[in-house]
């Protein structure tokens, strides 16, 4: 069961706002989903290793430097252009310190 306070806490962590009605709705819905998920507790998993990569790949690393493919066709400019607010070559964000 997910309480109203828990929903408020989760929404805050996820940076979303909920109306009173939505808090009610989502706490009921998430509670019923979590009830269903509770069936996982029937499975004994003490000696089982968790899976995080299904093909068995591990630690794919590379040099921390742009490759020629990374800088193709002025991609940086295109990314900056897509931002809602920008200045020169930067994303523009509201001031957080007075």
């Amino acid at each position, binding site marked *: 069961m*997910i309480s109203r306070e*828990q*929903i408020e*806490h*989760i*929404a805050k*962590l*996820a*940076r*979303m*706002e*909920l109306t009173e009605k939505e808090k009610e709705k*989502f706490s009921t*819905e*998430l509670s*019923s*989903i*979590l009830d*269903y*998920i509770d*069936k*996982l*507790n*029937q*499975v004994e*998993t003490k000696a*089982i*290793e*968790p*899976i*995080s*990569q*299904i*093909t068995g*790949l591990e630690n*794919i690393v590379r040099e921390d430097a742009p*490759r020629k*493919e990374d800088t193709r*066709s002025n*991609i940086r400019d*295109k*990314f900056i*252009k*897509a*931002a*809602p*607010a920008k200045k020169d070559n930067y*994303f523009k*964000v*509201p*001031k*957080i310190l007075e």
Partner: protein
Amino acid sequence: MDLPKTISDVHNGLIKGSFSCIELTKSCLAKIKKENKNLNDFLNLTEDLALEQAEKIDGKISRREKIGPLEGVSVAIKDNILVEGYKTTAGSKILEDYVAPYDATVIEKLKKAGAVIIGKTNLDEFAMGSSTENSAFGVVKNPADTSRVPGGSSGGSAVAVAADHCLVALGSDTGGSIRQPAAFCGVVGFKPSYGMISRYGLIAMASSLDQIGPLANNVEDAQLIFNIIKGKDIFDSTNIESKKTKTNEHNLKIGVPKEFFGEGIDKTLKERTEREINKFTDLGFELKEINLPHSEYALAVYYIIMSAEVSANLARYDGIKYGFSAKDRNLLDNYLESRTKGFGDEARRRIMLGTYALSAGYRDAYYNKAQKVRTLIKQDFEKVFSPSADGVDFILAPTTPTPAFKIGEKKDPLSMYLSDIYTVPANLAGLPAISIPCGRVNGLPIGLQIIGPQFNDHLVLEIAQIYEQSNQ
């Protein structure tokens, strides 16, 4: 003009001069424009790109140059895959005006092969859903019965193929999003093994599960697209070299998991699927009942892992880097307002579920537990496929428990989630799986699912083709 049905029809028609590529592309675009108001399978057309490509191909033909098998073939793209210079919305208000700054690797490969990219198809917001009712841009309708859903989340792509709006389409499959709509619309839908196709340029939903794949009118066309878009890509570090697996020489054995015919399955669909599976004995295959004991937990595991990854992947939509921004003067308010206004209900539900499953004090009980049960699900499959334990070569099962349901029918999220119950296990285990049409139930198409061992994508496609041909 009558639109050709298969890739080879297009190829032969172009070579013989039965039609030009421009004619073909224009008829296709005209058909979409006429029917999209009703079906709503396309969000945007990439008309300029399509006509430019078509002209190039006509030029090649007139110069008597050789053309490749995919040249001139109209392809529709699910709108969570980037096509440079065109809007890519992922079915979400938060990306309503987002223009893709580059081509996804699969798009680059399709363009190089001469495919005519015709438009972007509708989907559940961020590919989250099983009915395409969660799109911010309206419901998609099933051409077999327009009061019913086409399935989802690649509902637009499945409808585009079924309604002859394109020859083939790309979709993405995280828990069944290619196979389930393919089954509901009566087309072929293939989800390759995890890692076979680069996801660079696919808008991420749940990264340990997401896979791009084709939807088509027949298996041969799906195979052709798969062969063109697969392969190693430096931009996706989870991408792996496709391993060549040899087809077994011995009589192939088929496993039929009894867990896939249990509670919740439509009775007529069950009988029909069993009848189709029995046909395989006439084709020289040996049928064997198998057990996948942990598959009953697959959906619960899926909803934890998927939503955990969703909550992380969708954290990037902050109203700063791209997409919708509330443009508040305070940073926190800007985050809150952009995300609250930008995301629909299903996206918010999954973000919150995932945030909860990963939050302090709950991570072990939910996320780590789910990852462990995922191991057991994978081991179930390894056991049934194991050659040393007299295992089977592939598995046959229904794609969905019911045919397409009515629009608006499933109001409770959990009942909607249950329609993915037979497709989710292949994603969790990273296996190749295809849905092929296997008849109709009460006039509605249903799908037969073939699941193969990891990286045996070609085997799955071969078997699908044998079944398809036996039905012709």
